[in-house]
């Protein structure tokens, strides 16, 4: 049984002038436990919405999202929050670190709403990503690459079964992007977490073994492109 299984998923946004715009329409998608998969897609193709639907940040209009044996789409918001806190790690393109909190606290927030804070584990994760000497620093005191590593540590802080990475190297230069991607894959592997990464950067995706085209997956794009 796959870790993540999606069937007939659809999400539509209302348009300001009336009507609606379908952003995501995925008939079938699955991801095995500990699997690492990249989705290639242009900006504005609905990749982020797709990840938000899987994470339970957004509720779908229809369809089924089975994650770790639970149907995310059928859960209420509070239950989706809990499932996200316990099961999912999220890496954002802009890192989304809490600027008023230290590096260590940022990682602790990654576990705070799930199993609870385990400072020793948070420290070990930061050690693993090479930031053991930056625990008390604030994000603004770090380089972009270092901030990305904090985001990686935070995403793994709650022992997630699935890590969602949304353009995780979009703010990094080539060399740091390659290093960051390697780190994400390596740490996910070590923690036994599956990785679903979305990106539009061909050079990043080139280093990724299993890459699928999001345009082929998302029927909403196909329908839009049709005459």
């Amino acid at each position, binding site marked *: 049984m796959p870790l993540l299984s999606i069937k007939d998923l659809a999400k539509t946004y209302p348009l300001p002038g009336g009507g609606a715009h379908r952003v995501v329409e995925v008939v079938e998608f699955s991801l095995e436990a500990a699997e690492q998969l990249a989705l290639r*897609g242009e*900006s*504005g*193709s609905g*990749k*982020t*919405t797709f990840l*938000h639907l899987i*994470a339970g*940040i*957004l509720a779908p209009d229809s369809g089924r999202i089975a994650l770790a044996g639970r149907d995310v789409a059928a859960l209420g*918001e*509070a239950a989706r*929050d*809990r499932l*996200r*806190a*316990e099961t999912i790690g*999220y890496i*954002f*393109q*802009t890192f*989304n*670190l*809490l*600027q*008023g*909190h230290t590096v260590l*606290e940022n990682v*602790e*927030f*990654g576990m*705070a*709403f*799930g199993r609870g*804070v385990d400072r020793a584990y948070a420290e070990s994760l930061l050690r693993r990503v090479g930031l053991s000497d930056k625990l008390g620093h604030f994000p603004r005191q770090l380089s972009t690459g270092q901030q990305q590593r904090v985001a990686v540590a*935070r995403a793994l802080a*709650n022992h997630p079964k699935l890590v969602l990475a*949304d*353009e995780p190297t*979009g703010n990094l230069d080539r060399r740091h992007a390659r290093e960051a991607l390697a780190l994400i894959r390596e740490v996910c592997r070590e923690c036994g977490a599956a990785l679903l990464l*979305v990106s*539009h950067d061909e050079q990043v995706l080139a280093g990724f073994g299993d890459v699928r085209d999001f345009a082929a997956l998302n029927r909403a794009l196909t329908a839009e492109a049709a005459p």
Partner: protein
Amino acid sequence: MMLWNLIYRSLRQHALSTLVTAGSIALAAGLLLTVWVVKTQSQAVFAATNSGFDAVLGARGSKLQLVLNAIFHLEASPGNIAAADFEALRRNPMIGGAIRTAIPIAVGDSFQGWRVVGTVEQLFAEIEYAPGKRYAIARGGRNFQLGAHEAVVGNFAAKRLGWKLGATFHPQHGVSEKAERDHDELYTVVGILEPTSTPVDRVIWIPLEGIQTMSGHNPFAKTDISAVLIQLRAPTAGLMASNLINQSGGKLTFAYPIGTIVAELFNKISWIDKVLTLLAWLVAAVASGSVLVSIYNSMSARARDIAILRALGARRRTVFGAVVGEAAAIGVLGAAAGFAVFAGLAAGVASIIQAQTGVVLEPLQWNPVFGWGPAVFVGLCVLGGLVPAFKAYRVPVAETLAPVS
């Protein structure tokens, strides 16, 4: 734990607005506590202050003025009574039998604003100014002797005047700060009273005939007295004497019971504490509003942090609770600082009351307002925090976390 961390960090991040808001709450809380404590304690203490007497007999006029003058040594005397009138009253079997002790006093002089009062040595030798408490003269001193130019000085007055045993002074005519002129008589301090926390502490006591026969006083009034402080054999005797004397239409007023008459004073000035209390609540309302505004104004800047927390799994009620908790924390800080404001204000007010009346308040003694006052202020702050908390509750996560790909 992380919730506290969130609250703490947010308070630190917005340290200036936190301090300003907590400061305004501290002022409001301090003002409310002071008004409340001074009001309740002064009412209780003043009503209980009778210097050991049940009633005051004096010239025809206001009972309150008579009590304020004879017991609290405030206000002007309503006038003198002839000693013969009092003696005649005493010979009345219905009234004379009800009186256990009668201490005459004569007023009208002062020294540098401190009132000089004539009385009999019996006051310090026999009277209990409170149950089980008699006047005591500090070591080395003694009671004055009738006929001598000697004085026994209240503890507070002696301290303020810097007087020791053997100090001398010329009484001054009148009771205002700017006395009309010095009398010729030179008095010597022979005793200083131990503190009693009553108006007696701020009076310079001399023998009764000293006032009556002081140079410059009306020689035809040399047997007059200003009032008689009376201890009764039974409370029912007081009611009877009050009816007989006050309704006779004569030259005398019998003020009884003293506590009830003092309570009238507080009824008359109750508008002052009502205004001050209203003012304190208005300041509290403004402080609560400032909590609302200061947190609400920062919500736009915090929306991203809230969205991040929500993306990490924080529930809506968690971020709601964090904002309400922050408002409550500001309230707790303000209320705690309010106690410091209260301690300062109340100490000032208590010292003014002691200087003006001799009555000692103890504002730090437990008062129920110490419990409910801060609780109400924290509650008001929580109320003020509800609006921004609701805004935090409604932060749209996906939109706020843009950009999207």
